[in-house]
């Protein structure tokens, strides 16, 4: 808690709209609010400068006989999280949507509806997370649903139709199945529809199943994303440690921070390479990945694996760092700094990169704030938002670094933010190595009481990653993960409008959607409404 006065301001504002404080823990304030008042409470928080981190539906019937919806707001100016808890009776499961005031809640409310069966009043609802052939009335996050139940499947029409290329969600250059439908006029994009969640694997449910224990979940968390997995496992263990009041040895905190920054390096270099490839500059792709390879080798040397490092435990880390490893880290980042400086210079000199990245995919500051975007996307649109500064965690309170800020909000700005962050990460690693304290790297003895709640956040390469946990017996009672991309994808709609078709892939990739899910882009002409014909104004 940064100051008591800011806390009392928040409490006062919320009490005026009928909310009351349930609990204050560390930097989190939990409020209880009725479903009728939740919109007013959310509005009050927004007017205090809060942004929505996420919302989560919880089946609390075993505890209180009710469902609950948690809205987690961040007040980054105060370094405080305000959590609204709305109780929903099980025989009449509805609540009032906050979307009219907080557009950023769009997806997470739909997700609560899909997975828990709570209806949201005052907004349009549609299925978001579950596949189309999922039966109505089956809600995976309800406790009576077993994690390995498989409702009957229907192979949908996609199988039988036309002979053409599968208009599936696959794209040659980028390798995640997400699906965008671009509506174009000529070569200009006028609207975009998104159908994602091809990668919904039921992770949150799995973590609360009998198959998992607290100790095993880090390995699951790490596989949420193969690029920034360490962020997820760190965020999970931080949430559990926070909830259970486990004090982690300082050395472990430093090692986690170092590995997190190494991960950021690999992720940003990867992104830069992909961006170059999307702009047809394959030499840039190859060189960026060549440089990145040394980071991968370093990661393996520090953790035992090139990706999905597997060193996070509740209470610390599994692998210590010795002097040889320190030398290797220092050598790698020194070389990296030199090579990266040169490469960036060469890349930015390529005329097509500058001309195609600047002025395309613009996201204004106002839009960025309304949509609660995070990470480099926010910082490229002039929003100063970085969890490492706003809610210092692990060893970040001990290092000094700059948060790169650009105001143009276009693809070039997002590229430059990431370039600057690579240099900052190198500096952070250097400082962390210099200050690395001694001691053990893990506490073995701890106890995790059930019924505790905690929110943890980490600045992932793509932005703020949020984990919310309610502890249970032997395993989480509820574990909610909000990856940064979840927050950023809705902003694509604003970014893509008016962008040339050729720059759509770059624009989609520019939010770095957990490795550019710029998949198969279906092109529809808005005038004819058919998927077949494209009008192109000649000689434009």
């Amino acid at each position: 808690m940064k100051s008591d006065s800011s806390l009392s301001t928040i409490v006062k504002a919320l009490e005026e709209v009928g909310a009351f404080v349930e609990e204050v823990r560390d930097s989190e304030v939990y409020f209880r609010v009725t479903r009728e008042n939740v919109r007013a409470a959310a509005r009050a928080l927004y007017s205090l400068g809060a942004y929505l981190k996420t919302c989560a539906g919880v089946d609390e019937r075993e505890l209180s006989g009710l469902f609950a919806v948690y809205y987690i707001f961040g007040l980054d100016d105060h370094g405080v999280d305000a959590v609204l808890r709305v109780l929903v009776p099980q025989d009449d499961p509805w609540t009032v949507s906050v979307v009219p005031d907080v557009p950023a809640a769009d997806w997470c409310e739909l997700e609560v509806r899909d997975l828990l069966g709570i209806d949201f009043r005052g907004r349009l609802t549609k299925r978001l997370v579950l596949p189309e052939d999922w039966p109505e009335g089956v809600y995976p996050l309800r406790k009576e649903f077993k994690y390995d139940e498989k409702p009957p499947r229907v192979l949908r029409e996609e199988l039988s139709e036309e002979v053409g290329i599968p208009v599936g969600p696959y794209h040659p250059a980028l390798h995640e199945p997400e699906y965008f439908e671009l509506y174009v006029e000529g070569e200009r994009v006028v609207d975009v529809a998104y159908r994602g969640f091809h990668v919904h694997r039921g992770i949150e449910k799995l973590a609360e199943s009998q198959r998992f224990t607290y100790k095993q979940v880090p390995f699951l968390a790490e596989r949420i994303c193969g690029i920034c997995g360490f962020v997820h496992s760190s965020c999970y263990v931080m949430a559990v440690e926070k909830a259970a009041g486990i004090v982690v040895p300082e050395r472990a905190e430093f090692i986690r921070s170092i590995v997190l920054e190494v991960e950021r390096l690999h992720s940003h270099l990867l992104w830069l390479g992909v961006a170059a490839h999307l702009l047809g500059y394959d030499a840039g792709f190859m060189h960026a990945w060549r440089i990145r390879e040394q980071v991968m080798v370093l990661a393996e040397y520090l953790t035992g694996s090139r990706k999905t490092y597997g060193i996070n435990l509740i209470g610390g880390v599994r692998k210590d760092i010795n002097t040889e490893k320190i030398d290797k880290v220092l050598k790698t980042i020194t070389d990296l700094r030199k090579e990266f400086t040169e490469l960036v210079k060469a890349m930015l000199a390529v005329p097509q990169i500058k001309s195609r990245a600047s002025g395309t995919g613009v996201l204004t500051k106002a839009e960025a704030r309304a949509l609660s975007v995070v990470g480099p996307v926010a910082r490229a649109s002039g929003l100063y938002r970085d969890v490492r500064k706003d809610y210092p965690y692990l060893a970040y309170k001990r290092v000094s670094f700059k948060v790169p800020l650009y105001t143009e909000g276009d693809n070039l700005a997002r590229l430059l933010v990431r370039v600057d962050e690579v240099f900052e990460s190198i500096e952070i690693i250097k400082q962390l190595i210099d200050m690395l304290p001694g001691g053990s790297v893990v506490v073995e003895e701890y106890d995790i009481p059930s019924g505790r709640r905690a929110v943890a956040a980490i600045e992932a390469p793509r932005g703020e990653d949020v984990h919310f946990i309610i502890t249970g017996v032997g395993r989480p009672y509820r574990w909610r993960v909000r990856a940064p991309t979840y927050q950023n994808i809705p902003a694509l709609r604003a970014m893509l409008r008016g962008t040339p078709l050729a720059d759509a892939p770059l624009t989609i990739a520019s939010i770095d959607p957990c490795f550019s899910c710029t998949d198969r882009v279906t092109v529809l002409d808005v005038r004819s409404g058919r998927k077949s014909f494209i009008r192109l104004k000649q000689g434009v």
Partner: protein
Amino acid sequence: MLEVSSVNIAKALRAIKKSVWVYHLNSGSCNACDIEVLDALTPYFDVERFGIKLVGSPRHADVILFTGPVTRESLPKVVKTIKAMPRPRLILVLGSCGIGGGIWWDTYSTLGGFKKLEEILRENGVEVDRVVYVPGCPVRPEAIIYGMLLLLGLVEQKSKRVEVVASEG
């Protein structure tokens, strides 16, 4: 004639020995295998030296690189993509997810890997001619290369089924 005889496969393998075009199919993986696939193209591993090229359409593909545990949502698209590939259909199944469903092998929204998918493919009349499984979580670029060479018959398989009775002390 649904069956492609082994002779034909041998012939097909001979034909692609020096030019292997691969299509990457992600059925809902965590991306780690997928970035390692990309990594295999980059300077340190450079699979192009074997004539391996990543192509943008399953119609152009000689081999499909398959990742992910097959999520419910991706299933119809996956089936369709594999169907679009010309015979013989050679598939390299990459990573723990593709082979055994990975850490989420039994959840409500995954199929648990390629074996189940193969059954569904067969039900829909889509035959797969040859499969090589490449374990790893994620698969290292070298493991991908090794798997590809195994598919082409250029290296010997090392993994063998082992069954030992615990010693009598």
